[in-house]
Each structure stands twice: as C-alpha cells, then as structure tokens.
C-alpha cells in the first residue's frame, strides 16, 4: 500500500502494526456483499491544506446552525462558522492517539494511520445548544483521500442537534473514510441527521461509534440520497439504564450505486429501548446491503429492541442483501426483527393508473408512501424540508 506510506501524516502508531492487515475480502462475513477492490486498487492522495470554500450551496434553508467544514478531509476554519456560545467548545488536534486495541478491518487501520484531521466538539454539562452544528464534508479534488476524525462529547444533561452532510463540487473520484465517536453522557440528548449527497464516482466509508450512558437519548437518521459506493458502520453501545436509542435510515440507490448499512446495537444494562427502521428503494442495477446486529447482554433485562428493514426493488437488475441478527442472553426482554424485500403492489399500481396516473408517477407515489415513515422521523422541520427537496429534485419523491 504505497500510497499509505506516502500519506501517513498524523499518527503516533508505527505503520508496521498495519502490515499484517489487508482490505477485507468477500470471504469475510461482514464484507460478503461489499466489494472493496475498486478502492484498494486506486492511488489516493491526501490534500495538502484546507482550501477555503463557499458552502452556501450545501447549507440548509431555515437551519440556524454553526458550520464545521471539511474540504477533502481537512478542516477549514476559514470556511466554517465556529460555535460562539457558552458551553460549546470546538478544538482541533493534529496527532491522533488511537483508542483502538485491535483493528477489525483495514478501513479502520488506514483511518487512523493516515488521518487527515481531528475535530473535537464538547458540549458542557446541562448546556442546551441554542443552535445546531452542521458538519459539511466537501469533496473537491480527484483522487483525494479524506480521513477526518470527529469526536462529540455531550456531557451530562447536554442537548445538541447535529447535521452532517457529505457533498461534492462535481462528479470526481474521491474516497472519504470518516470516523465519528459520540459520547452521550448521563441524561444527555443528541440528535444526528446524516445526509449523503455525493456523486456516482465517490467512495464513502463512515464509522460511527456511539456510547450512551444512563438516561441518555440518541437518535440518528442516516439518509443516503446519492453516492457511488457507501458503507455506513453504525455501532451503538447502550451502557446504562433507561436509555433510548433510535436508528432510522433510507437509501434509494440508482444506476450502479452501492449502499451498505451495517448496524450494531449492544444492550448492556436493563430497561433500555432501541428502535431501528431502515427503508430502501432500489432501482436500475444498484445493490444494497443491510446487516443489523442486536446484542442483548445477560444483565439487560426488560430490554425493548425492535428492528425493521423493508425494501422495494423497482427493477429486475437491482439486488438487496439483508441479514438481521439477534443475540439475546437475557430472558425478560421484548425483541423483534424483520427484513423484507419485495416489489410494488401491482394492484395498487393498476388502481392508480386506472385513475389516470402514468407509470412513473404511480411508482413515485407508492415509493413516497413507502419511505414516508422514515421521512417523518426527521423531526427538525428545516432538515426534513431540505431532504424532501433533494429527493424531489432527483425525481425520487412524488411532488
């Protein structure tokens, strides 16, 4: 991995640690349906410095938020609107001290070895942020390798809303491998809206590691609207009692797009609730993957863990691979999981056509109805309106 040695800038770990690892292959269960050769075989280059760019085109109307802008993985303070209120602190680090003991796979290893920037956001105890934080990742250069690390700590009683957008300035081949760590301390509230709007040429790997303490409340909406190759690894550890964790997402791949959602929810203590709702609408020759793992450890009595992944295939050549996994060690719990993959209801389609709606419109009306419940989980009005608009522009939603 020559490019890795050349681009290794900000780690104090020896590169030799990574020598034994390689990119995962389809023989690894967790990567069975995910081809990484297209990433492994490219020459990637880390950007030298963060350029200043105008992010207006990527901002959300009606969302009054601070912005933290990453250009090709490098934090650009010049393009950002830093938080300026009591209780919110943003700091930048240049050297990564890896917290991992082992690497599960190569993407984690290179994210640490060649990390492009580190941003820490701390929300102090009992701080209720008056404005949200909009993190904008912009891909501008071909062959760029963007590997930012973001850490958010919401201290006890804190409340913060973050939106994270992945966008690009044009259709260019770039690889973003973003690592996120969120710590939700006792009784803190974090709401995270992730919106993926890259091009067919982009590769995007996201790892989100979330730790939630007692009475914490965490919601994440993973909305994949566009992107050539996307893998979202979402790991949530419910490490306390009376926690509520909500994971929602939709994906609507077209053409040859590939979208993979791997989630892991770990119930470690009693009386917690987790809800997972993912919906997919796949068209053309696109491929989707969903693997939802839920662990309920032996002490986690009175757990409520619900998981659902429903998919519609609109074309003969689209493929969806789904695998729910439930590992339950406690005996007094309520858990369910369900994944379905099907097609639009022919009766419903004919009914709509018999009222004069054309094929395309009828399908759009039905798929809009299908993902309606996930859209309603986007509780911030400005964000929901923005997402609906992005979908409508791409003719994915019924106007």
């Amino acid at each position: 991995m020559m490019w890795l040695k050349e681009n290794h800038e900000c780690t104090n770990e020896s590169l030799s640690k990574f020598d034994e690892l390689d990119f995962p292959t389809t023989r690894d269960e967790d990567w069975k349906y995910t081809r990484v050769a297209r990433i492994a075989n490219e020459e990637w280059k880390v950007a030298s410095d963060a350029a200043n760019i105008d992010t207006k085109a990527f901002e959300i109307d009606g969302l009054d938020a601070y912005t933290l802008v990453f250009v090709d993985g490098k934090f650009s303070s010049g393009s950002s609107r830093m938080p300026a209120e009591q209780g919110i602190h943003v700091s930048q680090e240049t050297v990564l001290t890896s917290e991992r003991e082992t690497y599960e796979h190569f993407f984690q290893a290179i994210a640490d070895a060649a990390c492009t920037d580190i941003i820490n956001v701390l929300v102090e105890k009992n701080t209720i942020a008056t404005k949200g934080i909009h993190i904008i990742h912009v891909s501008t250069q071909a062959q760029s390798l963007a590997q930012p690390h973001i850490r958010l700590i919401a201290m006890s009683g804190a409340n913060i809303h973050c939106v994270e957008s992945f966008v690009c300035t044009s259709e260019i081949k770039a690889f973003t491998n973003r690592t996120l760590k969120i710590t939700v301390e006792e009784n803190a509230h974090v709401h995270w809206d992730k919106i993926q709007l890259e091009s067919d040429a982009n590769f995007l790997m996201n790892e989100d590691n979330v730790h939630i303490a007692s009475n914490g409340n965490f919601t994440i909406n993973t909305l994949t609207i566009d992107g050539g190759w996307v893998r979202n690894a979402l790991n949530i550890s419910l490490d306390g009692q009376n926690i509520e964790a909500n994971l929602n997402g939709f994906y609507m791949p077209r053409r040859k797009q590939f979208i993979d959602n791997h989630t892991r929810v770990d119930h470690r203590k009693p009386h917690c609730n987790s809800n997972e709702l993912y919906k997919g609408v796949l068209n053309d020759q696109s491929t989707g993957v969903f693997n939802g793992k839920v662990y309920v450890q032996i002490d986690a009595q009175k757990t409520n863990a619900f998981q659902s992944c429903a998919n519609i295939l609109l074309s003969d050549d689209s493929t969806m691979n789904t695998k729910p996994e439930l590992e339950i060690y406690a005996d007094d719990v309520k858990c369910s999981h369900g994944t379905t993959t099907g097609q639009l209801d022919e009766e419903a389609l004919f009914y709509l056509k018999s009222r004069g709606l054309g094929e395309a419109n009828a399908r759009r009306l039905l798929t809009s109805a299908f993902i309606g419940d996930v859209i309603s989980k986007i509780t911030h009005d400005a964000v929901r309106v923005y997402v609906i608009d992005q979908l409508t522009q791409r003719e994915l939603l019924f106007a």
Partner: protein
Amino acid sequence: MSLIHIEGLHARIEEKEILRGLTLDVKPGEVHAIMGPNGSGKSTLASVLAGREDYEVTGGSVTFNGKDLLEMPAEERAREGLFLAFQYPVEIPGVSNMNFLKAAVGEMRKHKGLEPLPAKDFLKLVKEKAALVELQDHLANRAVNEGFSGGEKKRNEIFQMAMLEPSLGILDETDSGLDIDALRIVANGVNALRSPERSFIVITHYQRLLDYIVPDFVHVLYKGRIVKSGTKELALELEERGYDWIKEEAEANA
C-alpha cells in the same frame, strides 16, 4: 354516435377463454345494466375495458369516443374519460386520498389542455363531491381505502368518479356487500352524476340496485356473450325466475 361500441370482443386469461364475442353499444346519457350468473364474464368485461394487462384480447374491437380503446394503456383510457369503480377497491397505505386525487385530477386536466386547479378550488371541489356520497371530511384525508368499511370503500369509488367526471362510468358490482342504507347512498351518488353526456355500464348480480339506479337497457351475459337484452322489466323477470330459463334459451340457440 356511440360513446362506446364493443364489437365481437373475445378475451381470455391464462389460456381460459372468458369473453366469446361480446357486442354492446352504449350511447351518451344511457345507463346499461349487465347481469348474469357467476362466471359469465361480468368482471372480465370491466377489467378488459379498464385495461388490466392480465387479460388478453384475442378478437373484436372497442371504440370509445371514436378512438381505438384497446390500443390505449390504462392511464390513457382514464384520461380519455373512462372510469372503473372497482368491485374490490385496494387499500394503499401511506398514500393520502387527497394527494392521489390531486394527481389524478391534474392528469385529467392536463390531458384536456386545462390549467391545474388552484388548491382552494380543489378543496372546494372535494367538499362538494364528498357530500354527494356522504363521505366525511376526515375520510378524504386518510390513506386510500385504508381501514375503510366495505360501504365506505364503495362510496370512495363514487366520490372519485364524481371528482374525475368521466364520460363513461363502469360500476363493477358496486352493490355487492352493501346494506340497504349504503346502497341508497351509493345509488344517490351515481344518480347525481347522471347527465346527457355521461353513460354508465352497471354490472350487477342483484336486481335490487336497479330499483335505485334505473337502467335504460338490461343485458344478460352468459358464457362470455350477451344472450338477451331488454328494458328494466327484464331485470325484474330475472329476479323472479332466476337465470335457468336464460341458460336453456342460450344453449338451445347455440
């Protein structure tokens, strides 16, 4: 000039021939009732006219407003002014009655070269037409047919027909499963839509509906063909004598 002329229509589904030379002529403003024993092809006729693709037309022709109906896909037939009130209206969760109707009305108007209806006028139209079938406001806001009772579903069909103002309304056993009150409401709705420019083909198994929606012509469908035609008295005769005498006559003439 006919509104719709069906000539020697043959149709089958999965190798089974159902319509075997059906001929029917309907002029503007006329109400034609189609009756017949089970399996005679009543629902097949409705499906074929509406454009369901599972049915294959193997012979004959259908001219609607002077145009070849069989050449048009289902959505075009609807825009040309053909409306089918389904026997079993499907439930479509997540799609609101309002959104769906707005889209349908929009398509209709576009086809006729009209401007889209402004929101306020649309809402007024909804209120007016919903009242024809005593469909409460809240039902108009719900998802299409979701959680509707049988009677509400049938009334929703007539409500949609009122909104779309077709020139030909085909009612496929609209009375099946309805109690006398629901029947009355549905019939009132249909009667309110009767006009010299609008025709109806009322497919029914029971004569009772025809006390309310009084037909100009009654036809009996048997083994995929119209074997007897008459006026509303024929319906009463069928009610009294059943279908056996028709079947015997038809077999004798075959």
